[in-house]
């Protein structure tokens, strides 16, 4: 599958998980310090095949199946990263990441800080996240807000194949620890052109996916798709929505968000995670402070409910729908 000789010159049609796979391949080819670890990532190529072919190409020393222990995976990564390797660890599903939290909060995110720069921790933790694929319980979590509150830990979420490629390349080069959350509902949704020679994307910027003057729709991850669809619907009703993909939750690009909402005066924030304490709150709070005088309507958050993601028979009722986004936007336009 991979062959360094055949490095393509032009854009290739890739789906999101293929883009991840390519980014890993490229990073490992360019930098021998990049190593992968996780459960089922070597021979099996990962349960979503994100690491397919990499063991065959780079060998077992650089693509390591670990014993089944997420705390261990995180701790191994911290240790490796502290000594100059660039570990990219896979947590099989975000619902199993909690055992890794202590290592991330108490160590990875503060190793540079507490050693005053003597050591650093350039690790990447990748995890598929979010619902919508009828997965078993604990397999559809979206708890990005927990991580975005950890100073020192970058939290990055792509929403298209090319952003997946460009952001993962950037995450692996980044000298800081990065949590890289992959919206698994998008893994195989569509193939889109990805230019493998493009520069890595910035890890501190929102992406404005669609310009508009009337209202700003803000989202990230898989929900970008519902959000863009909502913008289409709104356009039919003559409402011009600007759509922003936050992409990096921490550090947050407040300037882009504030500029957009200062222009439109209206904001709808969309995420899958539960409402209370979700990262939408941080964005709404930013607007309430930095764009308050420009706001013409109450800031709305269209989110999951304050309950764990239901078992899959009801997951559709849980997740924000195009209709709920459109309704929220239209309500704002009445102010």
């Amino acid at each position, binding site marked *: 599958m991979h062959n360094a000789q055949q490095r393509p010159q032009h854009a290739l049609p890739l789906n999101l998980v293929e883009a991840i796979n390519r980014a890993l391949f490229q990073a490992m080819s360019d930098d021998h310090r990049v190593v992968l670890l996780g459960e089922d990532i070597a*021979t099996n190529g990962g349960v979503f095949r994100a690491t397919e072919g990499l063991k065959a190409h780079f060998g077992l020393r650089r693509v390591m199946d670990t*014993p089944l222990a997420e705390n261990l995976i995180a701790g191994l990564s911290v240790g490796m990263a502290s000594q100059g390797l660039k570990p990219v660890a896979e947590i099989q599903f975000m619902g199993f990441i909690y055992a890794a939290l202590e290592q991330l909060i108490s160590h990875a995110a503060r190793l540079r800080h507490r050693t005053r720069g003597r050591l650093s921790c350039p690790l990447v933790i990748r995890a598929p996240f979010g619902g919508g694929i009828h*997965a078993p319980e604990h397999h559809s979590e979206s708890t990005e807000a927990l991580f975005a509150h950890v100073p020192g830990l970058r939290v990055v979420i792509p929403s298209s194949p090319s952003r997946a490629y460009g952001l993962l390349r950037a995450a692996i080069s980044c000298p800081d620890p990065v949590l890289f959350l992959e919206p698994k509902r998008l893994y195989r949704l569509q193939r889109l052109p990805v230019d493998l020679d493009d520069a890595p994307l910035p890890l501190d910027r929102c992406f404005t996916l669609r310009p508009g003057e009337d209202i700003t729709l803000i989202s990230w991850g898989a929900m970008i798709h519902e959000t863009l669809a909502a913008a289409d619907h709104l356009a039919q009703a003559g409402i011009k929505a600007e759509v922003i993909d936050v992409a990096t939750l921490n550090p947050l690009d407040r300037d882009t968000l504030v500029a957009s909402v200062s222009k439109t005066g209206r904001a709808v924030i969309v995420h899958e995670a539960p409402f209370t304490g979700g990262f939408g709150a941080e964005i709404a709070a930013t607007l309430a402070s930095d764009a308050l005088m420009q706001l013409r309507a109450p800031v709305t958050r269209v989110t999951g409910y*304050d309950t*764990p993601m239901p*078992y899959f*028979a009801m997951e*559709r*009722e849980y997740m924000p729908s195009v209709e709920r986004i459109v309704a929220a936007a239209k309500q704002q336009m009445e102010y």
Partner: protein
Amino acid sequence: MFMPEPYQIHQRLDALADCPHWQRLTEGYRNMQLIRTFDKKAVNLQRTGQLGTYASCLGAEAIATAGGMALAREDYFVPYYRDHATQYLRGVPLYQILQYWGGDERGNAFPADTPASRDLPNCVPIATQLPQAAGIATKAKLTHEHAAVLATCGDGGTSRGDFYETLNVAGVWQLPLVVMVNNNQWAISVPGQLQTASRSIAHKAEAAGIEGIRVDGNDLPALLEVLDYALDKARHGKGATLVEAISYRLSDHTTADDASRYRKASELHTAWQHEPIARLRHALVNARQWDAEQETQWQQHCRDVVDDAVKTYLEHPPQVPADMLDHLYATLPASLGRQRQTLSRQQGDPHA
């Protein structure tokens, strides 16, 4: 009485002559057949889009059946996710097992009048059920119950710190706990030798100062003997036991997995030679405790029971969206009223 030999793999099927419990064994055989029939059907339901991702118990029938048969009503069961047979024997109707794998929380609302009523539901985050089982055992001990707790996990589960923390506290507190590991050689694609270098999984008991026992996980009478021993020991306040039951995962990991990517067909083929149901049938037939006619009748019975369960499962009316808020707290906090209203409005509108 059975006395375990340290770290010897206990087997019984090859020396059944002196076994006085034929009735228990034929009952066990029936249970294993039933659950295998159920399992095949469940895989089919998944393939035809009528069930979600499903974890087959093919090859784990003896282990889970022994668990269900050895447990007393007053005991507690803390499963992982391949214990359909135990759940069934504890009183969970098969249709509820389907509900669970069909993405419906009602599958965990086990009937109140069964031994399962206090059991924990399936546990998906690997090994996290084990410290909970230690908590239940602590409760049983504090309240002077004559009861044991049986908890299960896979070989992969033994790599998580939870496994060890549980055994360790069970040792210090002399808890009435039996941890049974279904060592089916694989954790998804990761084989046992990449999971641990310990001499055996049972040897891990040394780290906690409790007894470790190895048993052939395809040998129902051996499993029953070991579990009877360990549960009885627990009930009598004589401490915790780690049981390693050696089996083989004859299925893919789940219906979402393709095991041919990572393991040899020949290995699987060999494993089938030791599968628990044929081995027990062979022994029963040899001992004239079972015959072809009984087999035919029982297989028909199994199909009927399973078909019935499938019917009940498929005909169950769906939950209403507001259910996703109504069971979270004992009473709905006032602040969630607005969200509940939105959900109730959504009801009936599939596109809302």
